[in-house]
C-alpha cells in the first residue's frame, strides 16, 4: 500500500466551499436575556461566519422575547450550518431563513445629514421628496432626512447625497418579516 503514496495537492478538512456564496436574511426568535447578542455574535465570529447586518430588539415584552434579524453571505452548506448552530443555542427558540422560505419584506431606516447652501439645498430637497425622505431637522446650512425602505433604495439615496454635501449617515440595519398570514 505504500506504493500507492503519491504527492497530492489536496488539503483535508479544508474542502472547497460547496456552491457560490448567497446573501440570506435570517430571523431569529430569542429570549431577551443579558448576553444574548454577545452569544449570537460570538458564534458567528468563532465559526468564521459572516455578518453583513444585525438588528435586535425586544418584540414581545410580556414573554421576554426578542427578534434578531441577521443578513449573512454564505454558501448553501454554510448557511445550513449557521441555522443549525443558531438553533443549538439554549435561548434560541426558532430560526427562519426568510430568503430561502419565500417572499419576505425587508426594511431599513436611515438618518442622513446633508450640509449645503444655494442651489444644492433645492436639489437636495427635490431628491428627498422623490425618495419620500422626511426632513426631521433643518438649519440654514443643513438637513437631516429620515428615510425608510429597502437597503438598495437607501444606498441609492445616500449615493445621490454625496455630491450635494453628505456629512454623515446612521442606519438601523435590516428588519425583515415574512409575507402572508403566517407568523413565526
Amino acid at each position, binding site marked *: 500500500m505504500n506504493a500507492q*503514496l503519491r504527492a497530492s495537492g489536496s488539503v*483535508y478538512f479544508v474542502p472547497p466551499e460547496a456552491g457560490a456564496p448567497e446573501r440570506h436574511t435570517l430571523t431569529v426568535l430569542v429570549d431577551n436575556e443579558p448576553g444574548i447578542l454577545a452569544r449570537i455574535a460570538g458564534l458567528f465570529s468563532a465559526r468564521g461566519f459572516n455578518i453583513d447586518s444585525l438588528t435586535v430588539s425586544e418584540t414581545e415584552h410580556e414573554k421576554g422575547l426578542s427578534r434578531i434579524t441577521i443578513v449573512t453571505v454564505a454558501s448553501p452548506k454554510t448557511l445550513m450550518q449557521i441555522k443549525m448552530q443558531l438553533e443549538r443555542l439554549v435561548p434560541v427558540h426558532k430560526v427562519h431563513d426568510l430568503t430561502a422560505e419565500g417572499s419576505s419584506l425587508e426594511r431599513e431606516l436611515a438618518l442622513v445629514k446633508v450640509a449645503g447652501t444655494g442651489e444644492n439645498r433645492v436639489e437636495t430637497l427635490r431628491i428627498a421628496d422623490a425618495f419620500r425622505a422626511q426632513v426631521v431637522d433643518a438649519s440654514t446650512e443643513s438637513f437631516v432626512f429620515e428615510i425608510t425602505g429597502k437597503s438598495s433604495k437607501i444606498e441609492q439615496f445616500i449615493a445621490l447625497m454625496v455630491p450635494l454635501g453628505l456629512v454623515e449617515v446612521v442606519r438601523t440595519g435590516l428588519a425583515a418579516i415574512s409575507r402572508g398570514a403566517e407568523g413565526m
Partner: protein
Amino acid sequence: MAEQMTGAEMVVQALRDQGVRHLFGYPGGAVLPIYDAIFQQDEVEHILVRHEQGATHMAEGYARSTGKVGVVLVTSGPGATNAVTGLTDALLDSIPMVVITGQVATPLIGSDAFQECDTVGITRNCTKHNYLVKDIRDLPRVLHEAFYIAGSGRPGPVVIDIPKDVQFALGDYYHLTNFDSHKSYKPQVDGDLDAIEAAVDLMLKAEKPVFYTGGGVINSGPEASENLRELAELTGFPVTSTLMGLGAFPASNPQWLGMLGMHGTYEANMAMHDCDLMINIGARFDDRITGRIDAFSPNSTKIHVDIDPSSINKNVVIDLPIIGDCGRVLEEMVRIWRSKSNQPRTEALAPWFEEIGKWRAVKSLAYKGSDEVIKPQYAIERLREAVKDRDVYITTEVGQHQMWAAQYFPFEQPNRWMTSGGLGTMGYGLPAAVGVQVAHPDALVIDIAGEASVQMTMQEFSTAIQYKLPIKVFILNNEYMGMVRQWQELLHGGRYSQSYSESLPDFVKLAEAFGGKGIRCEDPGKLDAAIKEMLDYDGPVLFDCRVTKEENCFPMIPSGKAHNEMILADSADIGNVIDDRGKTLV
C-alpha cells in the same frame, strides 16, 4: 413547598436534590459562603484539588466513567479562568459538567474588583450554556436547569456564575424536576421512524457495510452499547470506532476492526474507504477520522445518527440523517431489523469479510520487539496482560502514549476509557484518574501517561494522596514530547526544536516526596515484576517506565492523505510522504 434559605444553602441543597455525591473544587474569597454551607453538611463530599484545571478534568473523569454530571466549584477570577481548559475539553468531548463559579458582589461587577473577571463572557464560547445569576429568585431554577442542560441532548459543560451577595441573600428554594416543557431548549431524542426504516432497508441490501461508532454511544448510556452489540450480532456487520467510542463494542468480538482514523488500524480505515454503506452512530466526522475529506469513503452511502442536528453535513455530506439519541435509534433499528430479517447476512457479507481478512493480515499494529529496551507498545501489552481479569479504568494524557494505549489496550465495556479526544489536552489523564477513582473507590484506575503531559497536572498526585485514592500513573517515559518529536521527524527534517524533555524530575523520588510510591523500570525482563509491584501497592503509584526514545506511532494517515494512503511501521521513506500543503495542517 418553598423553603427559605440563603443562596449558598440553595447551591448545596440543589446538589443534594440532584443526587450529587462528590464535587471537585478549590475555595476562594468569592465562594466562601458556599464553602461554609458545604462545611455544615456531610451528604455531598468535597474533593479539594491543587489547581482548578485539575478539578475540571476530575469532574470529566467522574462523568465519563459514571454517566452522571460532574460538578466543580471554584472561586472568581483566576479560579474561573483556570477552569477554562477543562470547560473547553468537556465541550469538545460532550461531557456533562456543571461548574459553579463565585463572582464579586453585583454592585462591584464591572469595576475591575479584586479577583473579578467576566466569567460568562470568557466561558460563553466554551460552554454549552452559561448563567450569571444576579437575582436570588432565579437561583433555584438556574441550578436545576443547569443540570438538565448539561446532561440532556448532546451533553456538555454549563457554568453558573454566582455573585457573592447573591450567595448571602435569602430566598425561596424550590426543586424543579420537569424541564420537558422548557421554552426553547428541546433536544430531539427519538429518531424519525421512517428514516430509521429507510436505514434498515439500506442495511439489508448492503454488500460492504461498516458501523462507524463514536462517543455518542457511550454518552447515551450502557443500554446504547447493549443495543449496538445486539444490532451488530443481528446484522453481522463489522464495527469500528473513534477514539471516544472505544469500549462500546467489545474488542474481543470477531466483527471488531479496531479504532479508525489517523492512528487507527489498516483494516478499519480501508473498510471505511471501500465500504458501500457507512452507518455512523454518534460520531462527528472529525478531521482525525476522515483524513483528506474529498477522498473520504468515495463510494459509500452514508447514514448518520446524531442527537445534534448541527453535526449533520458539517464536514461530510450525508445521504440519510437520523436525529436522535443513539441508544433509542439503535433500539428501533434492532426492532425493525428483526421484523424484516431473521438471520445475519453471513453469506452475502462473506466476500467483504474476505477483503477485510486481507487487510487484517497486514498486521498494521505489528512492531519490532526488543530484549534490551522496553518498547512502549510492549509496555502497554504487558500492562494489559497483568490486569486483563480485573475491572480496569484507563485514562490517558495526550500524545503518542495515548495512541498506543488506544491501539494496544483492548476494551470490552463502555465507560472504562477516559481520554481527551477533541481538545487534546495534555495533563488530562492524572486528574481524570483521580475523578474516576472517587467514583469507583474499589476499581483499578490507571493513567497511561507520557513524561511531558503528566508534568502539566502533576500536583494532583497530592490530591490522590490526601483522599487515599490508589491511582496508578504508568508513565511511558521516552524523554521527548513524543508526538511533537515524531512530527518534527516526519515534517521538519528531524530538527527537534524544544521537544526534548530536559531536566526531568526523578519520578521515584517525586512520588515519595508526595507520599506515594515510585517505581522505575528500564529492563524488559523486569517489566512484569515491576508492574505487579505497582498493582500490589495499596496507594497511589508513579511508575517511570523508561521506553525506546525515538519510537514512532504507526500506522498513520499523514496529513492531507486519504484512508487508503496509510503509512505503516515498515515504510521505507516516511520523511517524504507528506507534501508541502500537508505540512501546513496539524
